[in-house]
């Protein structure tokens, strides 16, 4: 057995050589591996560690739905619906060139858009925010999204994202209040208001969406997912849940809001209903209105243009808080306060109304040309004697610094922001010598200030610019005895189950000293105007069950243009509850258009059955 054919001395030089060759190979092999490991782990370790750390774990934002906006009775004014947006990730889209263009073309075909539009939109978004996914299309139909998901390979970097889109079930009603939601801007990110908001988050950009954004916005959740090289989610790693925004309950009464909008119809105008004591806004509307649902998606430039066009009445423009107008005779309230408090007259001082007043060669006429004879303040307000107030304007001009009316207008909230919880409020203007003379110096007007300006101001004509809301605040101040209320929409913050989380207190009111006797005289005059024979709006309110005091106004807009109709009312003047102001830019006399509107609104406010005034009143004021 020892002489086996393969038996040989234990080791021959040849075998030793061959083993050495294999051993040498092994040595080379291990050396190569060690050098490569040294290179990877020791020399380049930091780079690979960084790569590993931001490897394809992706944080996907889980957008929190915004809170709902409710009216004072809990009826939903604004809620959410889920839409699908198609986005493109900047880190996964093919590099610029034919492959990227081909992607745009495929996307455009799938989403039924124009390739050029897709490219332009995506590229501009990447330019603005290079590291944020660009939205190709909001609110994409489900079949298109599932097609994209099934063909993920052909759409590198494209991903659908569920987004909550705002929904406005009442369409035109209250459209101006709510405002829009949009992606946070770079400037906003630096603002403390937006702490906790990340690039790409959507925040309220106007209306109460803006004012109460910090409550409505909620907290976005984060989902850490692992994705494979195709960007397809392969595993959920960790999730922090999103928290829906809080619900915001407004003081708005949907019924009153609807009534106001209905009363305005297609006219250009506005209406305001505020609580006379607290300033709580019950209704606030502007016409023409628009359907805010078109803002839920990215609005098309064409639509935006249409909604901003002058010939369409600029539906986006909120006349109630941004529209500054002369207020006509409704301004006589302010003139009355100024004259009484300034000592020009007492409630009983009689002034003669001969139908016109001539000052410095210029004749100022009563509207309608009637002469009321000698009358005191109450009667002057009731019949809306212009001459009575011309005389006060003249007297104010010649007394002290001549700014008596301006000062009181300012005290009562005109020419300054009311502080309502809405952005972009208009400030208006109470014309003064300083203002006009400065303009004149810059050659922006043809003449310096004259006494005629003050006479016009006394009856709310001329350069006066007051928003309907400002007028309502002035009336509320007189009604409640001197508290300049700050109008506010927000009532409280609730959770989804309606539990109150935070009640907004009535904002602090500025106090102006009004002599109760003077105030009463004015209130009497306003009561007379709506109730007594000869009152400018008595006809309108005949047969109306709710006690109302109110003042008509007719602002002259210049030759060839219809007069602007105004009405300011105080309900239950003995214990004033609400102030209602309505205006129609081309409504004619106050009694003709605005007063019936106010009647309609008040009827809704008190749930009163009312058929409106029996006739069209054309009483001038």
């Amino acid at each position: 057995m020892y002489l086996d054919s393969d038996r040989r001395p234990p080791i021959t030089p040849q075998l030793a050589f061959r083993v050495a060759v294999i051993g040498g190979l092994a040595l080379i092999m291990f050396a190569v591996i060690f050098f490569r490991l040294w290179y990877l782990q020791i020399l380049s370790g930091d780079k690979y560690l960084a790569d590993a750390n931001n490897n394809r774990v992706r944080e996907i934002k889980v957008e929190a739905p915004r809170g709902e906006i409710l009216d004072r009775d809990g009826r939903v004014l604004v809620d959410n619906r889920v839409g699908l947006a198609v986005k493109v990730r900047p880190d996964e889209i093919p590099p610029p060139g034919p492959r990227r263009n081909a992607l745009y073309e495929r996307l455009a075909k799938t989403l039924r858009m124009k390739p050029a539009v897709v490219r332009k939109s995506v590229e501009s978004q990447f330019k603005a925010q290079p590291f944020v996914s660009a939205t190709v299309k909001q609110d994409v139909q489900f079949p298109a999204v599932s097609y994209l998901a099934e063909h993920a390979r052909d759409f590198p970097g494209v991903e659908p994202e569920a987004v909550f889109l705002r929904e406005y079930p009442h369409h035109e009603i209250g459209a101006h209040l709510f405002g829009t939601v949009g992606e946070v801007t770079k400037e906003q990110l630096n603002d403390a208001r937006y702490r906790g908001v990340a690039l790409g988050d959507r925040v309220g950009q106007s209306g109460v969406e803006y004012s109460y954004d910090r409550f409505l916005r909620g907290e976005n959740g984060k989902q850490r997912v692992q994705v494979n090289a195709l960007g397809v989610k392969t595993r959920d790693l960790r999730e922090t849940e999103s928290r829906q925004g809080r619900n915001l309950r407004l003081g708005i009464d949907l019924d009153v809001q609807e009534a106001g909008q209905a009363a305005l119809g297609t006219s250009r105008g506005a209406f305001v209903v505020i609580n006379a004591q607290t300033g709580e806004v019950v209704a606030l509307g502007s016409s023409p209105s628009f359907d805010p649902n078109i803002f839920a998606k990215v609005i098309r430039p064409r639509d935006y243009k249409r909604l901003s066009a002058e010939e369409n009445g600029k539906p986006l423009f909120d006349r109630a808080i941004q529209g500054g107008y002369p207020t006509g005779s409704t301004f006589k309230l302010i003139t009355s306060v100024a004259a009484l408090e300034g000592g020009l007259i007492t409630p009983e001082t009689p002034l003669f109304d001969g139908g016109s007043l001539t000052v410095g060669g210029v004749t100022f006429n009563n509207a309608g040309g009637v002469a009321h004879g000698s009358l005191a303040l109450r009667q002057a307000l009731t019949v809306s004697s212009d001459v009575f107030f011309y005389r006060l304007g003249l007297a104010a001009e010649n007394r002290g610094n001549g700014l008596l009316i301006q000062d009181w207008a300012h005290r009562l909230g005109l020419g300054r922001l009311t502080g309502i919880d809405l952005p972009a409020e208009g400030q208006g203007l109470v014309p003064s010598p300083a203002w006009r003379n400065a303009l004149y110096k810059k050659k922006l007007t043809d003449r310096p200030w004259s006494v005629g300006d003050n006479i016009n101001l006394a009856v709310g004509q001329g350069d006066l610019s007051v928003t309907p809301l400002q007028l309502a605040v002035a009336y509320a101040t007189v009604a409640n005895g001197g508290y300049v209320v700050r109008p506010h929409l927000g009532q409280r913050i609730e959770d989804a189950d309606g539990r109150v989380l935070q009640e907004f207190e009535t904002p602090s009111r500025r106090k102006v000293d009004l002599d109760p006797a003077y105030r009463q005289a004015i209130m009497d005059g306003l009561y007379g105007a709506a109730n007594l024979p000869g009152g400018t709006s008595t006809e309108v309110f005949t047969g109306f069950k709710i006690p109302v005091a109110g003042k008509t106004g007719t602002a002259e807009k210049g030759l060839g243009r219809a007069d602007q109709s105004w009405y300011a009312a105080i309900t239950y003047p003995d214990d004033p509850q609400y102030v209602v102001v309505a205006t129609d830019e081309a409504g004619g006399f106050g009694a003709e258009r605005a007063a019936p509107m106010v009647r309609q609104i008040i009827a809704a406010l008190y749930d009163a059955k009312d058929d409106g005034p029996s006739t069209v009143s054309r009483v001038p004021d």
Partner: protein
Amino acid sequence: MAAAQSAFGTAVKGFREESAARIVRIDVLLLVAAIGLMACSIYTLGTATEDDIAGSPYYYVLRQSIYGGVGIALMLFTARFDYSRLRELKLGLYGVTLASIGLVFLLGAAARGSRRWIELPFFRFQPSELGKLLLILALSAFVIDRIRRLQDRETTSRVMLLALIPAIMVVAQPDLGSGLVYLAIVITILFVAGTPWTHFAALGGIAAAAVAVVLVAAPAVGVTVLKDYQVDRLTAFINPSDNPQEEGYQLEQSITAIGAGQKTGRGSEEATQTRLDFLPEHHTDFVFAVVGEEFGFAGAAIVLSLFALLIWRALRIMTMSKNLYGSLIAGGICAMLMFQVFVNVGMTIGIMPITGVPLPLMSYGGSSVLVTFLAVGLLQSIHVQARETAAAKGREMII
């Protein structure tokens, strides 16, 4: 057995003592290397696969431990046998190799587009793994039969043909990695036996021509020899970022994992590449990347050192063998281990193509673990036989 029977002092002892003596004569360092690698494997899998199968964090560890335990038992059992007897069984061994690989085509369970396994009640048997060892035993025997005619080209051609038949069969499964291992084995056996270098030069020329045909000419005329993914894999390592979504992805993830391990590793909890599944096949083909990520350069060095120890002992056993058959077997096993280690580790660090070759004793998988332990058992057997022969001759072996 004649050697054992005539061995001085052992004839009178009982079988028990005889086998005890044989166990004593095993190569302890080889044993340490094999068991050390197995331990590394179980430890690494334990940390890397906790999250892989929801609800059973120990799925892979438990199975790998069982394979390891059975493997060690098989190794010790094999060590007691005289491998020389296997020479007579060469035809049977070769037949079993072809038959079992052929059986895969009949019964093979499809997995990821490959048919490599035969489903057994308790585990999936992969004949191409066992084939590596059977081929070593059979080819070595064939070579010994023609040892005096090694200069003939016919000998080289025949042996090559014998190896190419199963190699082509496994490549068709498709299991390119195992096919390449078979080639490495046959070349090494021929080399150790003493085939003239001119034959190797000729083989090299033929191989170059074959590669050209397979990769360039055949696709040009529409014949697909290698599947697309195999070609992708083979070429991906040249420039992984060319194709980050396919084969290059695995490669990039693997390199990132290893690089991120730095000197001492990220620890098992922080090893995101592994734990978050970026690293594909981290329990099988890419287990070395897990070692690199979790335990860093230090951990990788330990594992590589154990492999170096294993290969050193195999080389040494080649020189010790009592007969040429043992040397050839040891050479074949050495080639099998070296090739797999280099190709697998090289693949994870981006210097070799992705070929789906497991890392012996480290990668999870029953067939691979058992076969590798069997191979180590054969090495032990050669060692034991050599020591016994030496003892019988009254000569001292140098350890």
